[in-house]
């Protein structure tokens, strides 16, 4: 009887051990997915960095704070500083390390080789360097740019439109090209041109570029990257110059003159990356935000009185880009 009792006890203990997760498994099941991101400008720049920061917040809201945590090092315009942060996060074992800026590509390529068990992501670009632990992401910003260009061409009275660009690369160039294509699609005789100031941060130069456009008769302006706050200020000061934003919603910079903003929703990309990493795929894929996948959204300023006709046109153009009936031809 005693032997039977001991045997039953042993079986019970074995059964308990078998169905109870081991300590590490339990920790793994409960540990949050951890993401670390380096960004070139402030998380509230109303442009490129903020678009990613907002996406991280959206993912956290979706997954819950217990399941998703992130750290951000913003304002990292010195690439060497970014390299230090990215390496440290790789050592600390973050589940996904993101270099948010095309200027970080070279250092990310080296780090990905050095830490093959860490999942990295970078953008905006489509190059994974052929590594299976690197995701790349970019935005088809020419799509929203085209929509804005079409609206702008319909709104301009002077038939002069100006675009303030940073450096002629990445999503900024795509946006500018798309915008100009949209203007030309409506009326090729409109004088629309871009002025790249070759800086992502020189607010004063961006403002003067906008002043130059206004002095030459422009009544609609747009621009890309974080230095455009200076250019928006010029449009706001003039009062009769309209502005189109991109990357983040820029309505709050000038509520009376911002017509619409193309907003990046990187959460579309991030959610898929996270799912893949959790399934064991650490990279090797490149993503693209589009109007179709919801990664790009044209947000209209409710304070600006856009006519129902132009709203209809804008919606039709968005639909046309999504269903492929409108093809954007870039120079």
């Amino acid at each position, binding site marked *: 009887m005693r032997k039977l009792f001991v045997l039953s006890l042993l079986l019970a203990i074995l059964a308990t051990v078998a169905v109870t997760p081991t300590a590490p498994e339990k920790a793994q099941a409960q540990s949050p997915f951890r993401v670390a991101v380096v960004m070139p400008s402030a998380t*509230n720049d109303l442009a490129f960095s903020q678009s990613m920061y907002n996406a991280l917040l959206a993912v956290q809201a979706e997954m819950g704070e217990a399941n998703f945590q992130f750290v951000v090092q913003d*304002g990292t315009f010195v690439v060497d500083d970014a390299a230090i942060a990215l390496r440290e996060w790789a050592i600390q074992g973050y589940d996904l390390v993101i270099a948010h800026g095309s200027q970080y590509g070279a250092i990310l390529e080296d780090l990905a080789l050095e830490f093959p068990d860490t999942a990295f992501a970078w953008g905006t670009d489509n190059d994974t360097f052929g590594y299976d632990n690197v995701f790349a992401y970019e935005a088809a910003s020419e799509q929203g740019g085209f929509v804005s260009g079409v609206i702008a061409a319909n709104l301009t009275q002077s038939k002069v439109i100006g675009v303030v660009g940073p450096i002629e690369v990445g999503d900024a160039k795509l946006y500018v090209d798309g915008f100009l294509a949209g203007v030309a699609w409506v009326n090729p005789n409109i004088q629309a041109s871009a002025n790249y100031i*070759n800086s992502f941060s020189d607010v*004063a130069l961006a403002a*003067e570029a906008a002043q*130059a456009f206004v*002095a030459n008769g422009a009544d609609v302006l747009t621009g890309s990257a974080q230095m455009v706050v200076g250019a928006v200020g010029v449009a706001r000061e003039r009062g009769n110059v309209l502005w189109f934003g991109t990357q983040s919603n820029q309505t*709050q910079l000038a509520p009376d003159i911002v017509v619409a903003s193309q907003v990046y929703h990187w959460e579309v990309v991030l959610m898929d990356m996270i799912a893949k990493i959790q399934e064991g795929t650490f990279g090797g894929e490149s993503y693209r935000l589009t109007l179709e996948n919801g990664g790009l959204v044209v947000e209209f300023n409710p304070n600006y009185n856009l006519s129902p006709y132009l709203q209809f046109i804008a919606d039709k153009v968005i639909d046309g880009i999504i269903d492929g009936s409108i093809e954007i031809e870039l120079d």
Partner: protein
Amino acid sequence: MLTDILRASVAASAIRLATPYIFASLGETFGQRSGVLNLGVDGIMLMGAFAAYYAVYETGSLVLGVIAALVVGLLMGLIMAFISVTLQAEQGISGIGIYLFGLGLSELLFQKTVSTPTPINGFSRINLPILTDLPILGEILFNHNLLVYIAFALVPISAYVLNRTTFGLQIRAVGQNPQAADAMGVNVARVRYMTVTIGGAFSAMAGASLSIALLNIFQSNLTSGQGFIAVALVYFGAWRPVWVMAGALLFSTVNALQLQIKTIEGALGLDIPSEFAVMAPYVVTIIALIFASKRAEQPTALTKPFERGE
């Protein structure tokens, strides 16, 4: 007609762009003429820009904005003077320290207070009766905000102070031969404290001219390295206020010109690479600096700490 508009627009743009450089370079001229090199100009500009912006953001008062910038600039100048004059630290290194301090602190304060770039109502353009309406000249000279006029007014004032006053003589003496100045009864440390502090105030005003007059907004690293160009302009101007202003105007004019040409190049049938256009101001300035350096007379004691009895 197009040429006239273009000319007026370029000149007006150059004047606006030159304003922060003139404030900062004049301030740095005072310091360097007394023998102190302050590479922290950009950091002080950032602190001044934030202080002025925040004061206006909170109170709406432009006067308080200017006062806030001046107070912060004076304090930053005092810190630099303490490090370089009293502690006799290596001036280049301590200047970089001041720059990094200003860069980091202005960003931190901005994030903890305002957080998101938010426009304010800064200094408006002043409409001068008759003058502003003058063709071409009105657009170039009489269509600016108050801080632009103050910056240009400080040029002859600074030249007068440096060349025609006892204080100016003391500054020059301390910068050329501090031992001799000391022997003549000039308090070298006091003079250097004053010039570096004045320089701090001017630099802060340079920042304020951006945040509450020209751009009416603040964001991280708003100056984007303008303070370093201001230091270079002091060398360009051979430590003379009028030439410093000329350097600032030359640099800004080429910058304005390339912006204007890029704006209308489509209409003109041109296609100038943006890299070339952006490079132009620096190339022209370097070429001008080569010629200017021949007449440059650097203060002999520049960057050298003063030790009595050495």
